[in-house]
């Protein structure tokens, strides 16, 4: 029910400034951006889509930070595993 999907804004509809064409993996739909009126939405922005409305803008910096944290953990783990392997081989 609370299904939300990230999509990239392609254009703001000229005749309907409350609607944006949004791309989800090559699929396009007009999405209502009225709930983001204050922040403003531009082509290239990523938004979270829920039942035909853009609920929030995706903060790319935050996403990057989250990924870095996760990748960091992954990297540390790989190093550990590698170290483990090496120790075994020896």
């Amino acid at each position, binding site marked *: 029910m609370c*299904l939300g*999907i990230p*999509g990239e804004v392609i254009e703001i509809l000229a005749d309907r400034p409350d609607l944006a064409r949004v791309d*989800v*993996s*090559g*699929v*396009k*739909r007009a999405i209502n951006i009225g709930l983001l009126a204050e922040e403003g939405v531009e082509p290239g922005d990523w938004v979270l*889509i829920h039942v035909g409305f853009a609920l929030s803008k995706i903060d790319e910096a935050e996403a990057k930070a989250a990924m870095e944290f996760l990748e960091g953990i992954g990297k540390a783990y790989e190093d550990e595993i590698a170290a483990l392997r090496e120790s075994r081989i020896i």
Partner: protein
Amino acid sequence: MNPEEQVLDRIERARRRRPKVREERVTLAHGSGGKATRTLVEAIFLEAFRNPLLEPLEDAAALSVDGARLALTTDSFVVSPLFFPGGDIGDLAVNGTVNDLAVSGARPLYLTAGFILEEGFPIADLTRIVDSMRAAAQAAGVSVVTGDTKVVQRGKGDGCYVNTAGVGVIDRPGRLGAATVRPGDAVLVSGPVGAHGITIMLARGELDIEADLVSDTAPLHGLVAALLAAAPGVRVMRDATRGGVATVLNEVAGAAGVAVVVDERAVPVEPEVRGASELLGIDPLYVACEGRMVVFVDGAEADAALAAMRGHPLGERAALIGRVKDDPPGLVLLNTVFGGTRICDLLVGDPLPRIC
């Protein structure tokens, strides 16, 4: 057994009980290809007509008539809209029946065509449908040899429904069938899944979603011939129509009493199909194809089978998606992209009615 195991055991027993239709009336779910369809078929049709030829509930019945080994199948087509990117009800009706014959190991030969037309249906649309049936029949090398036309009052149909039945000849010795599947077999799919169902859903226009997607409707007889020539160890083939790949896998797992374990990462899905599925909250594994098949083959011949399929234009993106194991019997398990494992069960009702 621990308490959870006891419960799960009880459930498996409950699932093996004779199916019973609990509803008083037919609902759309009964036509979706999922659990409700299966219950209806088993509880009402199989129950009444039970005979050894019908019993396997394969894509086509295998008959022996006067020394000839034949396959016989039928499907009605009620797709809405009638015309969609990549095809229409006409080629769907031909390809669907050609495919049911082909995946049964038969060489498709002859089709019947039954039309139920709604009063007011444009003759031009009918001509267009019949033309694409002709083209599809020609492409598949089959002839429409007999037919029937009925007209129903306005409001008692939806433009045009088409039924095709098909007869093919089984040249190859030995039997194909879900019951022959055994642990160690490989599971293949002939190409990216779900394009047909998503295309139809988008073509209805109600969702206002645009995508460069076309139906995958295609006749599989050539691909099947290439496959069988290369891999005599094919156990069973099924075209993944209503209910999609997941439904086929469940049918086979159930019929053979084996576990089918699928690697989610290996299942080919077009990006647009994936995008639309995510947007709508559905799983491409359950979305219909009309020109894709699932193949179970002796594990030792998996590579040969895959190579043969990839050598055919309709199998270029064929993939090995899973393996058959012995436990838990009757279940399909999915090794997820994320590295977890879960059940991949029959759906109760398809979110996409009237796709074929």
